[in-house]
């Protein structure tokens, strides 16, 4: 049934339909509304039997999920930003132990400087921790992906992150079709773990593995992600058949078939990108978009197939690998190995900076005209940057840039030097 709901509420209600048995989370913006919604449902007894555990850190939140999942419970958590980093050690552990935990990541920047707004730095920083990473474009998709995520996680014994843009999606009210219980139950059977902590059949989980078998275990983790490349689209097809709308999958093209220029991106920014493409198409520009829905596993073949006919590719990404440039673009480049085309990386939307249609028109126009640098930064305030670079060039030790810029702006009353 369609309703006007906040993205976080839609996710909370959908996760509830997945009948989690243990929900454990630590508060961090912009994830809070999701787990508050689940807390309400547990307290009201509408989610029984489900335990909602409040913990002292994200590290504990995921650790509780690890214990619960290993005991055969369907376990869920949500986090963002610093919280995801604080979980880092447990992320690798959960995937290494093959525990099908599902986690929402309400994507948010990473400090310092501290910043609560959206970009993809958090999830991108954990791209290689062995979790599947699915990216939602809309709130409808964010909700739907959770149903699929539990299916994928439990079929593969792998944890899954559902990444949704913080605030842009989590706090946006939209018309959403939150599914009803029966079709979700039909789509998602109860969790039947392959291995469980059970006094009747004692198992040792998490033993030490040395050089004699470690590489094999790691290879098998990779092989399992490769299996996910087959499973993710199959689950998406089944979902569409059951619920009557497309969502999820590996990649999705938009006006891409004949496009000379293709913009590659993840998440909610695709809406703005597609609107911009529509306008440019009306002006006769041959441009399309490719949405990457599954970043881990990365669908090399699908990306290659989708981009093989393009003359140029512009990867627009909300994260910056300091010291090299793009993260998504490095993966796209791997998919395009041996294919000659113009490739551009544009870093955009860091720390919540709005990505507007006006700016995208300028960026796409520069790309189509091959006027772009290989690495560019959308809507950068170059005046501020250059002032700070001049200061550095003047010979003084730079110190902290954020504070220097504030001092320059007269906000921080401090000694000039």
């Amino acid at each position: 049934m369609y309703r006007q709901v906040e993205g976080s509420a839609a996710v909370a209600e959908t996760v509830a339909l997945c009948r989690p048995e243990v929900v454990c989370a630590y508060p961090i913006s912009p994830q809070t509304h999701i787990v508050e919604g689940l807390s309400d449902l547990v307290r009201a007894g509408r989610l029984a039997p489900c335990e909602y555990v409040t913990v002292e850190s994200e590290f504990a939140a995921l650790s509780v999920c690890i214990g619960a999942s290993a005991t055969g419970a369907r376990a869920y958590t949500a986090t963002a930003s610093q919280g995801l980093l604080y979980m880092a050690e447990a992320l690798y552990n959960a995937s290494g132990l093959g525990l099908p935990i599902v986690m929402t990541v309400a994507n948010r920047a990473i400090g310092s400087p501290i910043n609560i707004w959206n970009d993809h730095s958090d999830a991108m920083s954990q791209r290689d921790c062995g979790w599947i990473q699915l990216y939602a474009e809309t709130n409808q998709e964010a909700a739907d992906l959770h149903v699929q995520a539990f299916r994928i996680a439990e079929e593969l014994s792998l944890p899954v992150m559902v990444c949704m843009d913080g605030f842009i999606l989590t706090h946006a009210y939209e018309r959403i079709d939150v599914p009803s219980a029966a079709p979700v139950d039909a789509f998602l059977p109860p969790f039947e773990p392959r291995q469980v902590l059970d006094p009747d059949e004692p198992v040792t989980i998490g033993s030490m593995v040395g050089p004699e078998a470690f590489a094999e275990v790691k290879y098998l983790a990779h092989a399992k992600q490769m299996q996910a490349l087959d499973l993710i689209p199959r689950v998406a097809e089944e979902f569409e058949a059951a619920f009557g709308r497309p969502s999820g999958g590996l990649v999705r093209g938009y006006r891409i078939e004949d496009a000379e220029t293709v913009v590659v991106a993840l998440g909610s920014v695709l809406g703005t990108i597609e609107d911009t493409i529509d306008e440019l198409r009306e002006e006769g520009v041959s441009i399309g978009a490719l949405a990457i829905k599954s970043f881990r596993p990365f669908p090399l073949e699908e990306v290659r197939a989708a981009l093989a006919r393009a003359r140029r590719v512009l990867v627009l990404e909300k994260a910056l690998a300091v010291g090299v440039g793009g993260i998504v673009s490095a993966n796209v480049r791997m998919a395009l190995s041996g294919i000659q085309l113009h490739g551009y990386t544009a870093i955009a939307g860091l720390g919540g900076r709005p990505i507007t249609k006006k700016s995208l028109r300028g960026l796409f126009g520069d790309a189509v005209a091959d006027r772009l640098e290989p690495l560019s930064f959308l809507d950068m305030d170059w005046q501020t940057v250059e002032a700070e670079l001049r200061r550095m060039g003047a010979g003084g030790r730079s110190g902290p840039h954020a504070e220097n810029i504030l001092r320059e702006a007269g906000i921080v009353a401090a000694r000039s030097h």
Partner: protein
Amino acid sequence: MAQRDDSRSGAPYPPVTGKRRTASATQRVKLYQVGTHVAGNRLLEPEERTVQARMDRSNSLTSGHRACQGCGEALGARYALDAAMRATGGKLIAANATGCLEVFSTPFPESSWQLPWIHSLFGNAPAVASGVAAALRAKGREDVRVVGQGGDGGTVDIGFGCLSGMFERGDDVLYVCYDNEAYMNTGVQRSGATPPAARTANTKPIGEHPGNAFGQGKDVPRIAMAHGIPYVATATVAELHDLEAKVERAMELRGPRYLHVFVPCPLGWGADSADTVKLARTVKESGLFPVFEAEAGEVTAVSKIRRQVPVEEYLRPQRRYAHLFGDPGHPEIVERLQAMADANIERYGLL
């Protein structure tokens, strides 16, 4: 021993119904185990014998593991877990922190554990145990109980946040800390449980203040008590009946319970591997390690010192304290350690 006051036995956590330990169980059994090899106390009446003396013991940590000769942690874990297994009728799950206990018991592809056992990380064993308990509640399997366990590093340092969280939430977990007073698995570095003056790999007897500093470290049993949890106890591997009795008492209660077991480490302490039990006895008999029980935040019983020894008798056999007894040695440091023991004796009424 003080008589137990039932009204304080862990409210708001109701005690598990069933057999109640008699208040005199630990004190009536006076067995020094000096000069004997009677591990199972076969001279005792059958019901007074240790779990280890019974044919039906669970061997939770079975033989063949790779602990060092004389490992106090292996001894403590074996007694603690077998007692917990007996108390729960074998319905027990263990969550283990990274550390010696985890490493020596589970070298791939082998395992010494004969109960369901999970190792996740160094700092999260209490939280993993909470997760196991939460899953069991959700599944209506509260007949199955949970033990978390780790060394002092995993408990008082890196796992301390998770431990405190587990305590304050009231999760139904018995957490056992095997305290050998340093990071043994990584090569004997100082932890928050390393005593003053002790030599470790990073508190060597070099410079003006040899060994670990005075005035540092934390008393986690008392911090556990400050959480107001149903049960806190300390024990040593010299008094294994007492250790078992405390595990049994802990398993009679629901909610978070904490057991802090003193486990000598021959390798890390530079002690003879035959002296593990002796050191565990002299640390208690000197007053340096008070052995007590507390319920709902109040001390309810202490194990009296039976034959008081000066701290020197405990310190001298350990090479980690060798710098105190050389020439010229540091008699003033020994005096400070004796003062700590005397303060414990006074505080807990150990004599």
